[in-house]
């Protein structure tokens, strides 16, 4: 009986410590300024179709200081890789050294996949995301809503939770989202450091978001 009580107390303590640590990591965003060292490494999550188009428009706008650039795409997505290579070729005209990489992870959820199996496939994606993010250690993760981004952002949070590195999570909700957030957006609204929306209706609903009109 006492043992059980002891275990429960221990568990509560662990959960409490975890919660405190998580809050500390989530609140440390504004103080984190990786640009001071001269360059910011980016992990960009390319989803499919429209998601890729949008993320690439954002990546295109970023200066050469954002380097190296690591693109992560779902392994069933073939179109995104071509688009990324085209963009990087255009960006890299003067630089001989290739400073971008492309990585593949399992897709968290296919379009129209049932919710129940989505949990399993997301967990599977997490198993790939954690080693990848731990290896790349980017300064920031940039994403815009495909299911692929949630495991990657969670992995980035782990890096911070373990005290290894604070990784900034920058989320730009898709231009498709006018009145409601995507599922990824609803989750990452509470976990990201910079959360952008592109329509004023969403700014009203999510006051913690950043609104500066259409940015893609």
């Amino acid at each position: 009986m006492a043992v059980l009580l002891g275990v429960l107390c221990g568990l509560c303590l662990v959960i409490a410590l975890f919660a405190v640590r998580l809050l500390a990591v989530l609140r440390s965003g504004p103080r984190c300024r990786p640009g001071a060292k001269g360059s910011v490494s980016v992990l960009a999550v390319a989803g499919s179709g429209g998601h890729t188009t949008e993320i690439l428009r954002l990546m295109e706008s970023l200066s050469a200081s954002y380097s190296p650039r690591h693109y992560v795409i779902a392994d069933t997505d073939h179109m995104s890789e071509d688009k990324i290579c085209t963009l990087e070729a255009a960006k890299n005209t003067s630089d001989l050294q290739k400073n971008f990489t492309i990585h593949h992870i399992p897709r968290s959820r296919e379009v129209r996949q049932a919710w129940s199996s989505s949990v399993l496939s997301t967990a599977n994606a997490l198993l790939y995301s954690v080693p990848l993010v731990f290896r790349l250690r980017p300064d920031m993760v940039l994403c815009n809503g495909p299911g692929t981004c949630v495991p990657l952002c969670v992995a980035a949070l782990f890096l911070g939770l373990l005290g290894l590195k604070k990784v900034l999570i920058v989320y730009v909700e898709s231009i498709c989202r006018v009145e409601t957030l995507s599922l990824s957006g609803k989750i990452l609204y509470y976990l990201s450091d910079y959360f952008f929306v592109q329509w004023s209706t969403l700014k009203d609903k999510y006051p913690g978001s950043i609104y500066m009109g259409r940015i893609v």
Partner: protein
Amino acid sequence: FGDYDDCVRYRGNDEIRRAHRGCDVTRGRSELPQCSDAVPTLCLKALLSRGYKQLVLQVGRGSLLPGPDSCPGMRVHSFRFKDSIAADIRGADLVISHAGAGSCLETLGAGRPLLVVVNDRLMDNHQLELARQLHADSHLLYCTCSTLTETLKTMDLSVLEPFSPGQPENFATFMDQALGIH
């Protein structure tokens, strides 16, 4: 409406068509199987009645791949995929597309009249939000599979307003300041 040579693209399952006094139909990655074989014929007739003479169809993975003579009076050119349909969009007098962000932005960015057909079988039909907002701002016309034919018959393209592109440079400036990049 005059005598124009146009290309129409029809992307199979997804009700995406683009019309160049013609339609250019582009299809997204997802399937839209509820549109029956009969619908394209009715749509082609509607297009003909509005003066469109050529159709360029991007069929994607769809089962239908109409031949050049599949509709009398309408020159049909169909294909499955292309690396880029930018040139086709530029040459179109009307673009019919699914409501995917990429297709919409590409077409509106090229300044072409756009009719979007929404896929109401996606898990949560967020595509409709964008189409509805852009429609409310008079940048495009929109419909569903079932209302496509009727829309083609009655649409008025003169009400469309020009679409100004988004400004990713604002995002870049913000991030530079936030991250301490000089």
